[in-house]
């Protein structure tokens, strides 16, 4: 009794789709680089500029690592930009109070994690939609940052924190053998290395640990995950805390870059972060999205901004472009899942 009248998708179609999912983000990046390579002045296609772009990727990249977990679990975080600002202000205040670099940075990350705890708590305990919750904290965290900073930039000594985002970092601390043999293109801002390391850890977390499997399961089919005994609420809470802690880390580095705690910084950065994750192949309906993809997406966003700047494209055009890219990437995802679903 054949009660299903549809053929299964052939194995070749499945394989082709997997390849496209992997190659897609790279293709997007190549297109953007190629486009600006043709349009922008010579300086665009240089090692120095590549390093600049890498540095400019860090803030969005770190936040995108966290956002990958959230989006993979079927949630969304709109409070990223405000969390970055709050963390940068908290770090600046701690530095100003003379706490030293490491404790100040830790406090910045903790401030981020606190926003995440609020997000996660409201999402899991009150069962509110993450869109609304994080829309609320988008406003509240920004307000808290302004309140703490007394509505102005917080001047503070930045110590070695400013080295993190420096394109020409002080490498005198490294052993002499390393220093002499280090090729110049590897002398990247420490923040880039930090981002790379975080990405590796996050990829491991996502692929090899129970936490990663549960994150995917919740995004893929939440009722089933609950039925199978996955502690859905606890896992979600942890996801939001982790993601906001990453945004907090981004805020610490933002302080290092600006050398002031700026409560108005990273305004609207959540759009770049979500765009990076979605360009990387994540679906807003959950279950998919990789760290590698998010990193490529973040690099693409930074390349876009950098290319626009070098070509003299005004800022407002960039903003329109970012908006269009998000809508475009989500449309692509919709088409993709419609094809799969049918």
């Amino acid at each position, binding site marked *: *009794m*054949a*009660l*299903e*009248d*549809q053929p*299964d*998708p052939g*194995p070749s179609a*499945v394989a082709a789709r997997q390849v496209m999912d992997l190659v897609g983000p790279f293709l997007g990046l190549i297109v953007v680089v190629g486009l600006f390579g043709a349009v922008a002045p010579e300086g665009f296609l240089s090692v120095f500029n590549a390093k600049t772009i890498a540095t400019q990727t860090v803030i969005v990249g770190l936040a995108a690592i966290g956002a990958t977990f959230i989006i993979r679990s079927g949630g969304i975080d709109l409070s990223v930009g405000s969390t970055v600002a709050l963390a940068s202000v908290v770090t600046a205040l701690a530095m100003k109070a003379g706490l030293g670099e490491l404790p100040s940075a830790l406090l910045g990350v903790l401030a981020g994690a606190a926003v995440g705890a609020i997000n996660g708590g409201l999402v899991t305990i009150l069962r509110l939609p993450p869109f609304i919750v994080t829309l609320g904290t988008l406003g509240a965290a920004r307000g808290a940052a302004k309140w703490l900073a007394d509505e102005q930039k917080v001047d503070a000594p930045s110590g070695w924190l400013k080295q993190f985002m420096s394109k020409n970092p002080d490498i005198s601390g490294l052993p002499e053998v390393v220093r002499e043999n280090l090729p110049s293109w590897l002398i990247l801002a420490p923040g880039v290395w930090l981002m790379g390391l975080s990405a590796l850890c996050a990829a491991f977390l996502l692929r*090899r*640990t*129970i*936490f990663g*499997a*549960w994150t*995917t*399961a919740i*995004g*893929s*089919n939440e*009722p*089933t*995950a609950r*039925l*199978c*005994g*996955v502690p859905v609420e606890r896992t979600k809470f942890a996801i939001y805390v982790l993601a906001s802690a990453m945004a907090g880390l981004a805020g610490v580095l933002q302080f290092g870059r600006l050398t002031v705690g700026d409560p108005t910084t990273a305004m609207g950065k959540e759009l770049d972060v979500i765009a990076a994750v979605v360009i990387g192949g994540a679906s807003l309906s959950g*279950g*998919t999205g990789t760290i590698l993809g998010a990193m490529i997406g973040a690099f693409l966003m930074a390349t876009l901004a950098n290319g626009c700047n070098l070509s003299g494209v005004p800022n407002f055009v960039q903003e329109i472009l970012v908006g269009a890219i998000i809508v475009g990437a989500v449309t692509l995802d919709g088409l993709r899942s419609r094809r*799969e679903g*049918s």
Partner: protein
Amino acid sequence: METGAVLQRRRPPRLQIKGVCKRFGGVHALRGVDLEADMGEVHALLGENGAGKSTLMKIVAGAHAPDEGELWIDGAPFAPSSPREARDRGVAMIYQELNLCPHLSVLENVTLGRERARFGVKRLGAARSRLNQVLGDLDVKSFSGDSMVSELGPGDRQLVEIARALCFDAKIIVFDEPTSSLSAPDVERLFRVTRRLVESGVTVLWISHFLDEVKAIGNRFTVLRDGETVGRGDVPETSTEEMVTTMAGRSVEEAYPRSPRSLGDVVLSVRGLAGSRSPREASFELRSGEILGVFGLVGAGRTEMLRSLYGLDPISAGDLQLRGLPIRRPRPRHWVSLGVGLLSEDRANEGVALDLSIADNVTLSSVRRLASRLGTVARRAREQATEPWRERLSLRAGSTRQPVRDLSGGNQQKVAIARLLECGADTLLLDEPTRGIDVGARVEVYRLLDRLAAEGKAILMVSSHLPELLGTCDRIAVMHRGVLGAARPCEDWTEDAALAAATGGTH
């Protein structure tokens, strides 16, 4: 030998259910269910839609607690407070909508929620070898533990669920309409797997309303009707006819009222309708005063045909005519104004607005007519317009202000039909109008459709429940793989012939 037999008789049944009752609000879903299934048996649970099979199985699975009655597993009382607890006692449910995470691998799905780990890092070695052993026992070769579930077809996904149940050492596996989304070879494989399960001592509860399937796989059966156990027996010693009679408890003629209908002119003529994917070819003529049935299996393209016909999905080809008037670009608004109404199969989302009142629902499509010149609509006007339908459709509701959510499925469906009639529809396209409605209310829907046809309305009724089509329709056409066959008078069809046509003759 004798002592052995005595011992066997003394062993308590694997699953015993006694006097189970369950009420939802004022509705008695179950009123006295008894069931006994032994180890290593396929026990078929039979009953029409709404007989209480699903409720009973939810109780066994720990999703509902019974109001009265008791359950035992292997002689020990069994009163699970959650699905998790039921699973820990060895009960596995395999629902119609499969419970898998498509983005995870087979192995990850099987271990989900019970992963072994060291410092949070998954240790899947032991689970992998257990899964491989289970898949080997089931003789599954079409996928492995590393396959992604999203890439598996419905048959394979079901096997993943069975494998998961076995990895948990399930003693009782409940299949809820297991073949309803499977292809013929997959059904054969499921039978083979089920026989292996039973040989290894697992008890299988098999819920289905396909009796030939039950004949092929079942050992014993229990029949539910209106929430009560009304029969039980050995499958090999009982004929299909006897099972049907027990299930229905009445002859088919009674359930399907039929008044004299006079066939009128062709109202709706459809030629060569094709959508973007489905349907591929659909042609039919619908006359006033008749009920035309469209039968087909899940995925055959019946719903898609109605949707593209109604302009909800794009059409790629086709000639549509309403009373000789060609319709070039069908749009729902246009159809409504021409007196053609569509009833979706998805009642909760597309049939009625659950939170609105009966009056709001019934007048939803006709609200423009009731509006004043300024565009305001008085609640009184809506209620007055609704009042006649309450009696005409024997709607059981205290007041037309009652939200539709509070009504039973059958009464919700009447509200949805009333909305079509209230806005002046005389051609009704009905997609699974009796889905999820209990037996008594279904007969009322049949009676209503019969009366509407007798009044001269033209009705097209899509259904996957063959008996109701044979009982209510004048003509039936069968859809298979997106192609609608020619409509033939009801008398020319038998159940076997219709099923054969729906399955491409493989039946």
